[in-house]
């Protein structure tokens, strides 16, 4: 398969995952219980992006010792809990990460 075909297929499958539910689900299928469970979608999905990016190294093995990302993420979480600010969370995380790799 040439590169363009690969890109187009990947684009198609990406688009279909976005479109299918919006196209298929009808309003009548919702009730309070469904709504309640679906309200946990961000809470359930985002950690699956966060955790591996923090705890795994480039080769995919778990890295706990000598991993400044863990401490930086903890600091960002704490700042996030207290400020509830998206910007403060991102910047405190990046700042503490750079402090840990460049200064300490």
């Amino acid at each position, binding site marked *: 398969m040439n*590169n*363009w*075909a*690969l*890109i187009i297929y*990947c*684009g198609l*499958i*990406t*688009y279909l*995952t*976005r*479109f*299918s*539910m*919006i*196209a*298929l*689900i*009808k*309003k009548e299928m*919702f009730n309070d219980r469904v*709504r*309640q*469970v*679906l*309200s*946990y*979608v*961000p*809470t*359930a*999905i*985002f*950690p*699956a*992006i*966060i*955790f*591996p*990016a*923090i*705890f795994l190294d480039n080769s*995919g093995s*778990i890295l706990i010792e000598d991993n400044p990302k863990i401490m*930086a*993420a903890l600091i*960002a*979480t704490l700042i*996030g*809990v207290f400020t*509830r600010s*998206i*910007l403060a*969370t*991102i910047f405190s*995380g*990046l700042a503490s*990460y750079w402090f840990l*790799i460049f200064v300490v």
Partner: protein
Amino acid sequence: MKSNLKVFLKGILDVSPLMIPVVPFGLIFGVLAIDVGFSPLETMGMSLIVFGGASQIVLLQLFSGGASSLVIISSVGAVNSRHLLYGAVVSEHLSDLKLIWKILISYFLVDQAFARSNEYFKKNNDDNKYFHLVGGGATCWVIWQTTTFLGIILGSFIPEKLGLSFAVPLTFLALLVNDFRKFINVIVIIISGLVATFGYNYIPFKAYAIVAGLTGLLTAMILTKMIKTNE
């Protein structure tokens, strides 16, 4: 009711802080794509056609590792299956729209826009509230295309050791700031995170994200049944 333009602008405003980490992410993507052997035109085409950071990085990783097209396409599908859930969540708010709007809005259903518009949809019930998702999505689109382009051009000028890829998990962490004070949410976060981390190498086709997400959702389903809190 607010005007369409106002809702559109509110979408732009709400998603803007989340765009800061997207800048280095897009640059890195542009650099990487050229690195693993895509032409500048193909790289730009990828951002335009796929328009999804996680899928595009997975595509590059597997491509450079010599994976077959079938493995690459199914892995991209698995990584993207989280959008099925996003779609399910927002479908309630978009169900009255004309098909043409649904087709257009689906292209813009990226993580950051979904997260912010989902919050907006819960608090607002005007007929034109979907303009919020169009505004947020269009913002993500402009930033993603621009930074991909800059990444292609600037290439090797960007220092790799800045650890800018750490900005990506931070974005998603920032989206959970309202979750950390709620018991059920914290449990769901930990379970999903552990399943993803330990399943990363063992769950085929990079499906770890959706497996972890569904496990987390199941946990939420059980816990909300057990603990009848009225949040």
